[in-house]
């Protein structure tokens, strides 16, 4: 019961932070929406009609989320995350994904994918050489021949 109550409080506090983030996002989106030129489409519902509908809706609901979060008190500090190292690796993994996307076409499927796979295995703490070197090569080549040879799908 105590753990449940603590989780609930943590969730509520996170809700407040999320609500503030959403409001900032709405402000940004609203600014971008003012840049959409009005056009004569023959109806009052122009190209910015649905965006405004969504933005106002999100802002109102974010306010509701904030109020819901504020109603819970007091707020004990959440425990230091057991996954701090995990978040670091996750961030690195996200960077790896962006780098993989950037090199996929420029460098080509085979080299970029093999490098991504090996780095990925190392980030996942795989230290057996057979696993982090040979498995990637086998999987990447298998996918390559499956897609290009059997399914006739172009890969760079």
């Amino acid at each position, binding site marked *: 019961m105590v753990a449940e109550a603590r989780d609930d409080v943590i969730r509520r506090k996170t809700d407040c932070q999320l609500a503030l983030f959403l409001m900032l996002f709405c402000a940004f989106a609203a600014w971008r929406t003012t840049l959409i030129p009005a056009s004569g489409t023959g109806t009052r519902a122009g190209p910015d009609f649905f*965006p405004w509908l969504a933005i106002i809706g999100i802002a109102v*609901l974010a306010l509701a989320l904030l109020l819901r979060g504020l109603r819970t008190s007091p707020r004990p500090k959440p425990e230091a995350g057991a996954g701090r190292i995990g978040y670091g690796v996750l961030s690195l993994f996200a960077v790896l*994904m962006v780098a993989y996307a950037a090199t996929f076409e420029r460098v080509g499927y085979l080299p970029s994918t093999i490098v991504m796979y090996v780095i990925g295995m190392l980030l996942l703490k795989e230290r057996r050489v057979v696993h982090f070197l040979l498995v990637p090569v086998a999987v990447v080549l298998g996918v390559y021949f499956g897609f290009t040879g059997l399914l006739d799908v172009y890969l760079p």
Partner: protein
Amino acid sequence: MDISPHVLAVFDPEVLWTIALGTLGGIVIGALPGLTATMGVALLIPLTFGMAPILGLNMLIGIYIGGIYGGCVSAILLRTPGTPSSAATVLDGYPLAQKGEAGKALGMATIASFVGGIIAAVVLAALAPQLATLALKFGPAEYFALAVFGLTIIASLSQDILKGAIAGLAGILIGCVGADPISGISRYTFGISGFASGFAFTPALIGLFALSEVFSQIEKILSDRVERMKVSGIWPSRADLKGSLTTMVRGSVIGTFIGIIPGTGSGTASWISYNEARRTSKTPEKFGTGHMPGIAATESANNAVCAAALIPLLALGIPGDVVTAVLMGGLMIQGLAPGPMLFQQHPDIVVGIFTGTFVATIFMLVFGLLGIRFFTQILRVPRRILTLAIVVFCFVGAYSINLNVVDLYTMVGFGVLGYFMHKFGFSQAALCIALILGPMAESNLRLGLMSADDNVGVLLSGPITATFLILAALSLLLPLYRSYRGRRVAVAAQ
């Protein structure tokens, strides 16, 4: 007219073999993330050029049916919808796989797909011209009302309605990125030409469900919380089947109805069917936790769309969805013009297609059930290797749709977004539904307002529109009423 020779023509070994090959190929294509039934049909159309019409067209229909079914395999096993139409299957399929019941989930999906396919094929054979005429009554107002009805699914799908609604509205806003569907004005593209036509849907979906799951899996691997998924049984129990029968039939009817409305597609059908199954269930809280009727609802509906989408194509010459639009090309390269005259001028082809749809659905059942043991072997692969292999499939799948590197960034972006949404309790499904239905609602509302001189009352007064809007209001209010009643009961019990 004696149609038996045209029916028997499909049972020629060469035709049967071709349909079997098409269906098997379709299942493989559908199971690979990013490779859709549309792509499978488009890739193989040139092959059918030299074939007899009955051979070529039935092979394409086999790929279509197999492709839509195949999407459930990766949706259940890897939380990666193979095709957009199987996105809703993820909700209950993957939790079942996590419980070690992947085989049973696949079995249920196969049987539901078969039931949906057969029911729609019966409707196709019996009522094609009549139903196609009904579909023609759909104008912008009706499409808008249908989209609104679909969007109300969000209320019943979200455990936290507030966050579900925020996710849905965010989906609508994200759906606005790109050229405005009416005026062509660019919105939120930041000058990037790759976003001119909006975010590519399938890469976005792969990111939202599959790549976000990769991030979650990495988190589990790093904290040693990863459980090796067990695989047991391939047959849903008699009780599972009995409990899902009504849902399957309802899903088939919904899929058939949605399928005959041009431009809606199997993704919409499966979400609406899922919502109806949940809304009418005595245990709605079990949906999303690995509940068999959840799979039965989505898979029966999306496979019913296959045969149903052929109805407007064959009877009116209007494709029911993207795949049938490509199939139309297949008909045309055979020198056949789909439409009412096709029934009079080429009854052999029409009856051959009807019969081929039945046969392909039966092959789908056979290959699906035989393949379950093979499919589930995927779960025995060590988690690290599998997680990174999914990344490779995500990238290859997302890239191969348009051969556009912008789609890869889209996928990564949606992957990160999906991970945080999952982490903070926002429904990814709500965002996905809004991505599908938001643009449909927007363009049809504005088209409708243009034709009704901005008079909302005139726009929304048609009988079909009013029916959908009433259903939407009920769909929205019932979960709220249930939640209110639940709270009252809890208070009374205290």
